[in-house]
């Protein structure tokens, strides 16, 4: 079908624009590389060839401005190739020329015409540089590889447009390596997806001309469609396999096996077609860093690692801008000026390091610099000024928590708006972009040494690994990326679900995890709506938020092909898409971000800062249960001491022997009041905190449970009242910390009071615990029992004391401690002391049978619950005397 001439030109121009855009991006990268390695002739060869190609095509398409510019640039490059010294001036000029070319191309794209104007400002200096080196400019081309058959030539061109001779020359000089306007390319341009000059082929391909030549462009739509067909094929294959499993018809087995493997290969192939090296997203960065370096007057080196790491092109597109933004930030804010670096005796040139690697279905990208690091004080002030946190919060927050505030929406540290970054778009936007593709971002920063941003994103959005769960008879897929761990809960087991008022929580490694029942969240028909006491908990991590989704059953993890949600269902916000399972059924994919938002709404009422108990902060925070009893003053107990929270029917409360008691789990449990003003209710239910050590239990009557808060426990005012350890500021509120031990003593009447100090004053107890709270709580108890106490805040410290000859009668050690834990400590002590039977007790607030065994194996003699004073004293007395006698 003959096409109107204008259409032919359109296609050619379109193709030219796409190709040239790509080539120019490559030129940018290559030139910067060349500036750093002036002796690398290969790079220069690449650059020269690319510019030459552009020039040739410009002449052919009658684009005189572009042609003149590329010609001048090419001439200079020709000189450089012939051995002229590479100067920054020359490279800058060529880069400026490239920018001008891009501007012209942008206009050309819109109007199909070159904008009017002259480029003498660039061509002049280029010519001067070229002339400065002996030989007059001339066309040097080492790449003429013979004449190409060129069918476009045979089409009628507008008369007088380009002379035949000129065409001949252009064609001869058009290198085979760049298949610019070959007939194939023209034909393909019609198949192409919407024109996108930013879409680029890998620069590596350019270095391997044969690869470039053997590749074709395929529309994204075509790939998407292939992907759909392949997943359909996989499905059918699965159904066939299922049938063949049921029938023992061996005739089908072999061909089916073959079909199966071919299908798998096909699926992999299509997936691979969508993958691109992440280096494509980095292509613009060397140029960017070079320009920033010049503009800011700082020496900056960019190092990249793992550019060949592949990921889905869709993800690649989405990650591009955040990466550029972070590199800009690093150059602008992260790195100090050269002078300042020298003053700090750092290497004068700053380094920005960009690395990518695969890690179990994800890609980890790290952007780090060796600059000044994040300014924690500045972030804190800014966050307070912007009302993101209160001053009280700020005081309590660790440096890591403060640093993470830069991801909070609306936060931007750039106190001064520069031309490079700080245009009101900050890390919050970056985080948002990364969140959208199911990724996470975190920051590590050391003052004076630099910062690193760690981004974790899925390899592809099309196929994800998902955990299939069941709730209320329905199946759902949870993206594996968001799943931190799985916990099985049963009433009475190690992991049991507890309630704070109506909010279910799970105690997991001494942290409380807010729970939400997936069935209830999705308003499904959950049988027992009121309480859940068993089930599987999917510990879900979204950014800094961690919560547990309670489900009825867990199936397996499956690779699923994500299909978008119908637009009519998108408003639900809980699902990110749908997928077809191996058995052909459709499954909804939960959107962890959407769920997290809902959980945030119904979950704990503590503010955002408190809602990140998972993140490892340097200062261990103690979870506390805040409550009111009697007076309005807030009271709190360390949550680890609380066994359960119960609502007791007031009718079951009895008075026995002048004390309030209640039947609890087949025993009488004494109920105590922490405040005389706190009255035990006579009707309805009475909230009670239950403390138990397994054999005996007591209840403390409270009016109201406020919240679970997590904070560093610094007791400011020591209590003068019995039963109060002291006061502390907990999340901005003055709070009385209740001495549980005191009440245990009261509850079990006199056991404690009756003990008289019998031990000799020389007996020394070594107490090792990183928690000031427990050291403070146990020391007076031990002293009251007649022992001297030497306290150590770490196992290392205690070990050091033992090595230097300190010999206590007994060692009490916490189990969970940073650096060396109690178990390692015990092993080390046993190794140090050899056969000495020095008794060692492990202290823990949460005992499990497994732990007890490990404690014994490590060399402890016994295990004592931290708050169980009588047992502790009794154990010490028993062992210490025995050892004393033996010694």
């Amino acid at each position, binding site marked *: 079908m003959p096409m109107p001439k204008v259409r032919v030109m359109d296609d050619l121009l379109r193709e030219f624009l796409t190709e040239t855009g790509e080539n120019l991006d490559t030129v940018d990268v290559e030139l910067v590389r060349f500036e750093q390695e002036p002796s690398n002739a290969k790079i220069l060869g690449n650059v020269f060839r690319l510019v030459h190609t552009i020039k040739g095509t410009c002449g052919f398409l009658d684009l005189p401005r572009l042609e003149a510019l590329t010609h001048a640039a090419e001439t200079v490059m020709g000189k450089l190739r012939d051995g002229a010294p590479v100067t920054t001036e020359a490279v800058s000029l060529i880069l400026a020329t490239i920018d001008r070319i891009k501007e012209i191309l942008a206009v050309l794209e819109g109007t199909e015409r070159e904008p009017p104007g002259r480029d003498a400002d660039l061509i002049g200096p280029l010519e001067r540089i070229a002339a400065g080196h002996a030989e007059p400019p001339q066309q040097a081309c080492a790449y003429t590889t013979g004449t190409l058959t060129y069918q476009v030539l045979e089409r009628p061109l507008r008369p007088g447009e380009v002379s035949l001779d000129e065409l001949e020359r252009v064609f001869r000089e058009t290198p085979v390596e760049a298949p610019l306007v070959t007939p194939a390319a023209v034909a393909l341009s019609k198949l192409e997806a919407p024109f996108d000059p930013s879409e680029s082929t890998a620069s590596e391909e350019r270095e391997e001309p044969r690869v470039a030549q053997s590749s074709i462009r395929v529309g994204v739509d075509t790939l998407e469609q292939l992907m759909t067909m392949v997943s359909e094929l996989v499905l059918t294959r699965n159904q066939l396999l299922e049938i063949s499993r049921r029938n023992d018809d061996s005739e089908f087995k072999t061909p089916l096996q073959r079909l199966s493997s071919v299908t798998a290969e096909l699926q992999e192939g299509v997936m691979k077609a969508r993958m691109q090296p992440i280096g494509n997203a980095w292509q613009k960065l060397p140029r960017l860093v070079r320009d920033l370096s010049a503009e800011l007057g700082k020496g900056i080196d960019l190092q990249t690692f793992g550019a060949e790491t592949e990921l889905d092109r869709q993800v690649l597109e989405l990650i591009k801008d955040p990466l550029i933004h972070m590199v800009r930030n690093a150059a602008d804010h992260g790195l100090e000026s050269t002078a300042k670096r020298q003053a700090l005796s750092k290497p004068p040139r700053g380094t920005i390091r960009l690395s990518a690697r695969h890690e179990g279905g994800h890609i980890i990208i790290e952007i780090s610099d060796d600059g000044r690091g994040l300014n924690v004080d500045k972030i804190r002030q800014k966050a307070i000024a912007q009302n993101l946190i209160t001053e009280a919060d700020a005081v309590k927050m660790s440096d890591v928590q403060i640093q993470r505030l830069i991801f909070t929406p609306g936060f931007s540290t750039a106190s001064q708006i520069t031309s490079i970054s700080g245009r009101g778009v900050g890390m919050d936007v970056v985080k948002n972009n990364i969140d959208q593709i199911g990724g996470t971002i975190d920051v590590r920063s050391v003052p004076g040494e630099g910062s690193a941003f760690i981004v974790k994103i899925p390899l592809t959005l099309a196929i994800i690994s998902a955990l299939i769960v069941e709730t209320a008879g329905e199946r759902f897929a949870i993206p594996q990326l968001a799943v931190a761990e799985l916990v099985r809960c049963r009433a009475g087991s190690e992991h049991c679900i507890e309630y704070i008022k109506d909010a279910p929580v799970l105690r997991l490694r001494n942290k409380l995890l807010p729970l939400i029942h997936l069935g209830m969240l999705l308003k499904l028909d959950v049988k027992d709506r009121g309480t859940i006491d068993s089930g599987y908990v999917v510990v879900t991590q979204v950014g800094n938020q961690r919560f547990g989704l309670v489900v009825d059953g867990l199936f397996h993890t499956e690779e699923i092909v994500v299909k978008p949600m119908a637009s009519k*269902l998108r408003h639900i916000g809980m699902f990110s898409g749908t997928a077809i399972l191996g058995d052909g059924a*459709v499954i909804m994919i939960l959107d962890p971000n959407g769920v997290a938002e809902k959980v945030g709404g119904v979950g704990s009422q503590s503010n955002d800062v408190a809602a990140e108990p998972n993140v490892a902060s340097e200062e261990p925070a103690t979870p506390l249960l805040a409550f009111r009893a009697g007076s309005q003053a807030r009271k709190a107990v360390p949550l680890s001491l609380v066994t359960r929270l119960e609502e007791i029917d007031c009718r079951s409360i009895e008075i026995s022997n002048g004390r309030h008691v209640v039947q609890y789990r087949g025993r009488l449990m004494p109920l105590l009041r922490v405040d005389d003003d706190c009255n035990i209710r006579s009707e309805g239910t009475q909230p009670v905190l239950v403390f138990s050590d397994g054999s005996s239990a007591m209840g403390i009557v409270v009016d109201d449970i406020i919240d679970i808060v997590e904070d560093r426990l610094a007791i400011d005012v020591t209590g003068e009242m019995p039963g109060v350890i002291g006061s502390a500021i907990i999340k901005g509120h003055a709070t009385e910390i209740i001495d549980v031990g005191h009440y245990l003593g009261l509850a079990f009447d006199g056991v404690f009071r009756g003990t008289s100090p019998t031990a000799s004053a020389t007996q020394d107890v070594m107490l090792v615990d990183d928690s000031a709270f427990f050291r403070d709580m146990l020391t007076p108890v031990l002293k009251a029992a007649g022992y001297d106490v030497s306290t150590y805040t770490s196992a290392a410290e205690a070990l050091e004391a033992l090595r230097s000859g300190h010999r206590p009668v007994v060692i009490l050690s916490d189990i969970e401690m940073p650096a060396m834990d109690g178990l390692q400590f015990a092993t080390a002590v046993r190794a140090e002391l050899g056969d000495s039977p020095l008794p060692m007790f492990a202290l823990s607030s949460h005992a499990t049978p497994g732990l007890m065994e490990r404690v014994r194996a490590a060399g402890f003699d016994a295990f004592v619950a931290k708050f169980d004073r009588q047992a502790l004293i009794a154990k010490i007395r028993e062992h210490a005397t025995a050892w004393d006698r033996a010694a």
Partner: protein
Amino acid sequence: MGSGSLTMTTRDINEREYVTATIGEQMFGLPIDRVQDVFVVDRVTRVPLSQTDVVGVMNLRGRIVTVIDMGRRLGLPSQRPEAAPMAIGVDDRGESYGLLIDEVGEVLTLSHETREANPANLDATLAAVSVGVHRLDGKVLVVLDVDRILDFERKLNAA
């Protein structure tokens, strides 16, 4: 596609073809150029928190189809068979929807002459999704507008 439907209508500008269906006692017609296929609804996955009209999503030859309960959508008592309920497949901007009906009827070619505007007293829910009626022998066929059926926001506002 534009030129295709042009040739269809030039045959007789006064005639249009409809895929007919019944919901409850009522007969409906959908313009045939909007109908993709008719299929049996099987293995529907519920979509929690969705509009009550949405039955769920299902896999139709590798495509995800959102199934809409037309009885609910139109406020009519449905008399769907328990086994193998049928749906009419329609496309909306690249997404597939299945309109769950009680029974599929034949394809009718109806002339403009039997067509009338919606009666003034037509039920508001029906009127919102219909673009007129056809007088047939012994019954009335309500012409449904696919875009308006899929316009959930309109339904929510009306409710």
